[in-house]
Structures are given as C-alpha cells and as structure tokens.
C-alpha cells in the first residue's frame, strides 16, 4: 500500500520518537544517579525501538525501497517531521524529565488511539508502545512531583523548564490536511482530539508538583513542515556521522 499522507504521518510518529530518544541517550553516563542513568537510557531504548518499527513501516508505505536506517541516517533536517520541543538540547535533569513527561503523556494518548488503526502493523506497534509509555509516564510524573514539590533549587529549575517548554506544547495538537486525511481513513488519529485529555492529565500532575502553567501566549510551530530550530542540525550531525562516513558499514 502506498499513500503519501500516511507516509508523512508515519514520519511524524517515527521522528518524534527518534529525536527525543536520541536526546535521552545523551544522558548515558551523565545521569545524576546510577539508577536514573539506567532509567533514562531504558526509556531511550524503548523510543528508538518504536521509531525503528515506525520508520520501517513508513519506508514500506512509501514504496521506494527506503529502510528505517536510510530514513534515520540519510535525511537532512529539513526532511525531519518531529515536533520542535523534542529536538531542544537536553538541558538539566529537570528540563529533560519535564519534556519527557509532556511527551510521554502525549504518546500514551496517541498510541492508545492508534491501537484502533485500520493498519494492522501500526495497531500492533501501538499496542506495544502503550505498555511502554505507561511506565514512562509514571516514572516521569513521580520525578516532576519530587522536583516541583522539592527544594527551592529543584523547584526553581523545573518551574523554569515549564516556562521554557510550554510554548512548544501547542504544536503537538495542531491538525493539518495530512492528519485529517489519515484520521478520516481510519489509519491515524487527529492530534487535536488528544488536547483536552493531555491538558487535564498534565495539569493534575503539575498541581501536585506545586508548579504553575504560564499564561498561554505565542506557540512555536514548524517541525511538522521541516522548519526546525538551529538545534536539530547539530544533533543530526552527531547522530548521523558514522552512518554517513562509512555507508553500508556493519558490525
């Protein structure tokens, strides 16, 4: 089956997880404690695993013989379709945890809906991702409360992360023609339908954490159209250099 809209949609799903998974993997060897180092890289492993399956399916849907590796390592930034929030540098631990919390809640709601996709491959990938995301959400939510309702230092840092990241949350729920086409075909989910539940779940945890959501103002967007921040290119240069320097290498 080839479908340009479904291909684009799968790139968005795959790129979100590849990019934030890579950002998490940057914590390998740098976690604040050993257990957390392991936790962040475990979550990274789940997300990069999900990205592998989604990009593999994207390549099949595109029908031009591109593998998941070709899509991950041989596209330039302008061809990536991830949300901007996910490409921002990893920041401090509070920033990483808060971003991961925002994304994990989003991913859980999205994947729950995608278990009903008319595409059997996608519904199978989603069923597995739901189980994984549930662990990610709980882990991150506990840390958000621990840091937010913690010391002056931890609270200030994680509140700063809320203030910095909030303007990137709007993009997650914007539906365009591609989203509407795959949703009406029963293949994908319209992201705007996830917004209410995401906001209520996230607000509940931020309340528990004594954190405040900034007044809604300008929301950043562009990732779905390949208009990225300056950070993505630097990230890709590191992520892709081995594959591009030694094409076809295996070990």
């Amino acid at each position, binding site marked *: 089956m080839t479908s340009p809209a479904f291909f684009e949609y799968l790139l968005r799903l795959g790129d979100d997880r590849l990019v934030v998974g890579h950002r998490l993997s940057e914590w390998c060897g740098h976690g604040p404690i050993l*257990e957390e180092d392991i936790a962040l890289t*475990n979550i990274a492993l789940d997300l990069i695993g*999900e990205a592998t399956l989604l990009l593999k399916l994207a390549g099949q849907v595109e029908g031009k013989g591109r593998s998941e590796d070709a899509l991950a390592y041989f596209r330039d930034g302008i061809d990536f379709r991830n949300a901007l929030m996910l490409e921002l540098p990893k920041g401090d631990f509070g920033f990483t945890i808060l971003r991961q919390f925002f994304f994990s809640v989003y991913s859980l709601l999205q994947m729950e809906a995608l278990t009903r996709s008319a595409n059997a491959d996608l*519904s199978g*990938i989603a*069923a597995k991702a*739901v189980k994984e995301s549930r*662990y990610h959400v*709980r*882990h991150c939510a506990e840390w958000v409360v621990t840091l937010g309702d913690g010391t002056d230092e931890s609270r200030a840092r994680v509140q700063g992360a809320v203030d910095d990241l909030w303007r990137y949350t709007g993009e997650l729920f914007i539906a365009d023609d591609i989203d509407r086409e795959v949703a009406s075909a029963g293949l994908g989910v319209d992201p705007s339908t996830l917004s209410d539940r995401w906001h209520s779940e996230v607000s509940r945890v931020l309340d528990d954490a004594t954190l405040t959501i900034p007044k809604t103002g300008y929301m950043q967007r562009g990732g779905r159209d390949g208009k990225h921040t300056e950070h993505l290119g630097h990230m890709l240069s590191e992520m892709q250099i081995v594959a591009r320097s030694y094409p076809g290498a295996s070990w």
Partner: protein
Amino acid sequence: MVKRAALSRDELFAVLETVMDPEVPVLSVVDLGIIRDAESTDAGVVVTITPTYSGCPAMREIEQNIRTAFEEQGIGPVDVRTVYSPAWTTDWISASGREKLEAYGIAPPGPADQDTLITLRRRAEVLRCPYCKSLNTVEKSHFGSTACKSIWVCNACRQPFEHFKAI
C-alpha cells in the same frame, strides 16, 4: 541442509525449549511466551515470534539462536518471522518459567496492568524476596539492567534483586 519434513508442533517446540533467553539464561523462549507459532512446511520450518519490548536488543540474537538450534539437529531451512500484534504480555510467561525465574533470583511478574488511565502513583506492589522469601521488600528503581526488569532490595536479608516487570 537435510530437511526433515512434517515435524509435529510438539517436536518443533521441543527444539525451541532448548533455546534460552540470552539475558535470562534459565528461561527458554517457550517459557518466555514469545513463540507465537511453529510449523513445518514443504519449504522448511517457520517460527513466528513476537518481541518483548520494541527496542529489545536481544531479539536478533534470539532469532539466530533459534535457527542454530534447528540446524544443529539437521533441520532446515528455518524462517523466523516477527509479528507485533497481539502485543506480548508477561502473562504469557509459563508457570514453570515463573518458578525458574524465582529460583534464579528474579522476582516473577504479577498480572499485567490493564488500567488504561494515567495513574500518577503506581499501585502499591508487594514482592516476595526470591532469596529469603520475605515480603519486606522495596523498589529502588523502576528500570533495571534490561528493559524488562526493575531493581528491588530486600529489607530482611539486605539482598538486592531484580523483578521482571508486568506489562
């Protein structure tokens, strides 16, 4: 390669019982519940497996070990196929597999969580220490040495141990 046609499902599973999980070497791939089907066809043996976690790095090694196990018995060719639906759950780990896990020092999983709501706090989980059998245990980390495990410690015998997470 010698092809032995028309092996029964039981005979195929007997071979698969000898293939151990590389990370938990007391557990066969059958105990682990990742074998969805095995049949012998005119073209050879077809084994259908499902991954435990999306990013589990042991899957390729498991596929290779399955092929090797059959080839060592002169059976082949072996086609290992992967399916993603229905998604693997720890409920598929066999009863004998659970006993082997505990004897190996890994607390086996409880029933998989069917809760679709986002729960901020985890359910209070009570685990039995696989070493001294005390119930006075506490989770130290939600994530362990592999994607499928968490890290616990027993307050009675002070022994850290791993838990196979229910998913």
